[in-house]
């Protein structure tokens, strides 16, 4: 800005020599601008692929020459890390004798069971017993609000049809334990999170600096315009 002011000042009292000098100066300035923009374009062209490559994590170094790291370091880089949980594999577990009690060879003192119809007529099978198996499939999302009293009065309900939704009654939804097979591993161990570097990357710094510089320039320019006006 100051250059233009002086030139305009000298332009008032111009002669041929002064005019020539001024033309020379203008030409020099134009040349400098061209040169500067050339440098900008060159550096931008050089920097862009490199920074893109380093942002994308592409290795630009020559393959086969990795002189910086030791063998053990390279090995541990690919390792999933130390073991934090070690549960014996299920497939190999010895088959524990199932919980079915065996009848001992003693004299049978138990009387023969009464006929089924009698038992059902006298005491309908409690729904609690039948709950064991279908518990996992019961729609627990319905919640206990929708449960209607399952056996009103003395109406017999066939044991094959358990009351709908009634199974959610005694156990509140959510108290169900997730089955061990579905239990996902804690996210911190299986998938090592990509830790961002504490110190920003040099490109980040450079971009930040560039941004600050541009902001400052714009502010300065605007302020000066206001002052001029």
């Amino acid at each position, binding site marked *: 800005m100051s250059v233009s002011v002086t030139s305009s000042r000298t332009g008032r009292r111009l002669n041929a020599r002064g005019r020539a000098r001024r033309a020379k100066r203008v030409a020099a300035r134009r040349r400098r601008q061209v040169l500067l923009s050339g440098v900008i374009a060159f550096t931008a062209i050089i920097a862009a692929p*490199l920074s893109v490559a380093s942002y994308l994590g592409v290795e*630009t170094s020559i*393959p*086969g020459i990795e002189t910086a790291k030791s063998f053990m370091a390279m*090995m541990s880089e690919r390792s999933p890390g130390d073991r934090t949980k070690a549960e014996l594999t299920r497939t190999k577990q010895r088959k524990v004798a199932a919980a079915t009690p065996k009848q001992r060879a003693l004299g049978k003192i138990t009387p023969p069971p009464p006929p089924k119809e009698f038992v059902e007529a006298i005491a309908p099978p409690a729904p609690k017993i039948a709950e064991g198996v279908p518990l996992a499939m019961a729609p627990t999302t319905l919640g206990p609000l929708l449960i209607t009293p399952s056996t009103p009065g003395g109406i017999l309900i066939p044991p094959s049809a358990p009351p709908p939704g009634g199974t959610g009654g005694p156990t509140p939804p959510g108290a169900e334990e997730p089955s061990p097979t579905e239990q996902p591993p804690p996210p911190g161990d299986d998938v090592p999170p990509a830790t961002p570097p504490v110190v920003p990357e040099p490109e980040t*710094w450079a971009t930040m600096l560039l941004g600050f510089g541009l902001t400052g320039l714009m502010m300065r320019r605007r302020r000066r315009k206001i002052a001029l006006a």
Partner: protein
Amino acid sequence: MTRGFFVAVVLAALATAAAAAWSSRLMDRPPPVASQLEELPAWANQDRTFLTKAQLFQARANGLDHDVQSILNVRKRMQFGDFVWNDRDVPKGTVWVRVDLKSQLLSVFRGGHEIGTAVILYGAEEKETPDGTFPVLAKIKDHRSATYDNAPMPYTLRLTDDGVAIHGSDVRWGAATHGCVGVPVEFAAKLFDEVSKGDQVVIVRDRKPARLPS
């Protein structure tokens, strides 16, 4: 005004270029040794990293049993069930297997070049996998465990007389074996084809304490 702007932009662009060059390891990389470049075989490519003599020396000092010429470039941290197998153009040679229990990795080497690596499962604390050097005693393709209820042990490479082996299993987080080394089944099949009876398997427990005189 415009000149100041241009200068600022040039400086910023230069700084960006320098930063990019630096972070892409163009600047701080030590110059390659000429002799080593000549030693690289023609099939050297981005898939593997060749060790320098200094790196090998260091690795041997840290307890590596065999000479290693190159290892596979695994560009990410492997997860349970992952494996890499690449024996393209690798010449024939002695096959040996390195099992690192601490880092939960297995590496297969042929003629000093790593051709495969996988994440393993190993013995639980009450059923520890033994460490040391074991020759492969037997190869059984469709083995079933005699000790553990006929559990399938596909592609078994038996290491000890008491049943410790390398075999295919469901490699997943949080699991441990009864002393065997479990590898992904697909990898186990490749390993089974590669390794022959008598080849060495080195099982390393922990690098440093094992080497210290007690």
